[in-house]
């Protein structure tokens, strides 16, 4: 089915080296414990829950407001003039408007308009990393000095569905620019995509549907492991060459298992494994894990990131931290600070905040 890999033909490498100039995360403050969902829908079972709790957006929060928080944090760390940004690309599957970009609002709010590209990405949970690959291309070709790539979601789970335990809100944003200015270089990316209908929402449907167990082996595990393997092979590396790794995290077990399949230890994935305490932030899931790793990484550390989006595909990234990280790290709140900022809610409050109560 596939031809042998060679790094020159399969890895996506920009013409000039690029990297992350600034990064930022955002997690809304409300937390719904999984046992609270189980209390309502599963007879109060306490074992076998996919996560501990998930982050829930407040009444006045959406992907626009959350993107703005994450992008502002990334801009704080980047310390650049917003007028130099040539693209604002925001990946999500919960953009507030069906027609009208999220990205224009964010671009305007940070002062990047009007000499700028702006577009919204959609590829289920990997829309954020799609935006990152595009930004690598735009900057790496020399067309732009800086581009912003973000991925955030206010994910909806159908009441009572398995996904309601995990569908969460949050995400991250990155300012991509020349490698010599970066706090971490983006050495290469690799994308593995097939037509695999494991999860979808058709127009006018309120909640997404999924292929139940089909979302596991043929979808998540196939794509994340193939993308991860290809990246390691083409880079001539193994898990031992990386200090850290982060994978798309729809629950606790899936990323742990693919990490183990690729030879990574629990220590390597610990800082980026956030799904147990914030849930599955969809387009934000892998990349918010990356921000938590950058919060603790040292110059010279190498990081593997593999996203996954249903439909389906994975983007893998080979990243190396530079000596500019320590001086920029504290210019914005850390991801763990957002996670610690926690207000627990019950299912009734959750139902209100998420608009699950029909008002008309």
């Amino acid at each position, binding site marked *: 089915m596939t031809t042998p890999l060679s790094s020159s033909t399969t890895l996506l490498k920009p013409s000039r080296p690029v990297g992350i100039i600034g990064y930022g995360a955002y997690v809304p403050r409300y937390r719904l414990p999984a046992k609270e969902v189980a209390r309502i829908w599963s007879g109060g*079972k306490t*074992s*076998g829950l996919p996560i501990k709790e998930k982050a829930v957006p407040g009444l006045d929060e959406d992907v626009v407001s959350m993107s703005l928080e994450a992008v502002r944090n990334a801009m704080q760390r980047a310390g650049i003039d917003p007028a130099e940004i040539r693209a604002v690309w925001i990946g999500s599957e919960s953009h507030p408007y069906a027609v009208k970009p999220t990205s224009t609002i964010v671009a305007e709010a940070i002062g990047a308009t009007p000499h700028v590209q702006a577009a919204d990405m959609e590829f289920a949970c990997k829309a954020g990393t799609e935006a990152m690959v595009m930004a690598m291309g735009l900057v790496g070709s020399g067309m732009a000095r800086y581009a912003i790539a973000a991925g955030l979601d206010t994910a909806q789970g159908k009441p009572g569905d398995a996904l309601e335990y995990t569908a969460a809100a949050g995400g991250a944003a990155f300012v991509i620019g020349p490698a010599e200015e970066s706090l971490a270089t983006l050495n290469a990316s690799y994308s593995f995509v097939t037509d695999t209908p494991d999860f979808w929402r058709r127009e006018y449907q309120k909640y997404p549907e999924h*292929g*139940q*167990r*089909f979302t596991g*082996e*043929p979808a998540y595990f196939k794509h994340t492991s193939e993308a991860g393997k290809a990246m390691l092979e083409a880079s001539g590396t193994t898990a031992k060459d990386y200090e850290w790794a982060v994978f798309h995290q729809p629950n606790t077990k899936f990323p742990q298992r693919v990490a183990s399949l690729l030879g990574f230890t629990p220590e390597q994935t610990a800082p980026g494994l956030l799904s147990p305490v914030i849930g599955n932030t969809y387009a934000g899931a892998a990349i918010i894990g990356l921000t938590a790793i950058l919060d603790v990484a040292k110059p010279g550390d190498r990081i593997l990131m593999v996203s996954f989006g249903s439909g389906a595909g994975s983007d893998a990234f080979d990243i190396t931290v530079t000596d500019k990280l320590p001086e920029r790290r504290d210019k914005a709140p850390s991801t763990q600070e957002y996670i610690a900022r926690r207000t627990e809610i019950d299912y009734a409050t959750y139902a209100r905040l998420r608009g699950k109560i029909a008002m008309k």
Partner: protein
Amino acid sequence: MSMTDVIIAGIGQTPVGEHWEVSLRSLAVKVMRSAIQDAGGLHPQALYVGNILAAALSRQAQLGTLLADFGGLRFDDKEHRAGIEAETIEAGGASGGAALRQGYLAVLSGYVDVALVVGVEKFTDMLGPDVEAAIATATDSDFEAVQGLTPTAQAALLARRYMHEFNVPADGLAGFPLTAHANAAGNKNAMYRKAITLEAYQKAEVVSDPLNMFDVAPNADGAAALVLTRRELLLKDFSHPLVRIAASASASDTLGLHNRLDPLWFAAVQVSVEQVLRKAGVEREQMDLFEYHDAYSIYAALCLEAAGFAPAGQGWKLAAHGSIALTGQIPCATLGGSKGRGNPGGATGVYQAVEAAVQLQGRAGSNQIPGAKLALIQCLGGPASTAVTHLLERISD
């Protein structure tokens, strides 16, 4: 024995599991080819397909013709005229056994020299509620499914009654899945190749009270096939020990559970077992193994009782006391049964025949019952609304 012995000349099976990327026809054609190859290339004149759900889940009827066509069997002679007889046999969870019986009768009667029997089920073309609704069509739809009763709920009702009537402890049925999983560990075609502990059973999530996850066999995709012929028609270089079908019986009961005088007595099991023992002229005690129907652990217990291996209400003790283990008095589910191997619906009866043949031919590896000569196999449609029973016998070394 006589020259009209119906011999299992070839077998084929695919691992049971979630074959997302393989269609029903591909699953079946693969095992049909393996079975024909195992038989040394005998060309079938008739194809009998055991299946329940293809029309509902794969939107496909006429499986007989479909599989003959795609299996390259359409032509029954060198002149390339269409010809081979090919039909689907449906009897709920007993479909595979019923298809095997058709193949046996056709070859025994002399109307057909070589029959190919294939059991195939493909669950994963559809999801949850659609699958449940399709499976529930095997109940008395107007009286049972219409009330929301699924086969699993039906089994749970029987298990609850069984526990009440016979003072069976909450984990009394644990021995069935424990045995199944222990045996599945040695079967490379099994879905769950892992033993489980009593503690894991006790902690398992309830599916339909009192049945937990381990009491309910997992519905999964699979296909198995057998080539049947008369002894004198075997190819000269046939190298396997000869295994014949010594007897075959099929019995029906009320379709709806509510019409039974005693729902805890599987009368169709009793009748069909008595028939095969009588026809073959052997005693129950001579059986070296029993591939019973364990879609639900409670059904395994009720099968053992109605088949005469235990008094009413005592079948669960055979499992609890190790009597159905590979080294026990009457080894059951020797390659995992439906619980460990996986429950491939209408293919179950064909898998059972393939597994019994593997045992009788001495090809069962670490699961081998030493010197196995007689195997009883039985599959059920619903709660023994249909029971199809076969007796397989090794007649040469």
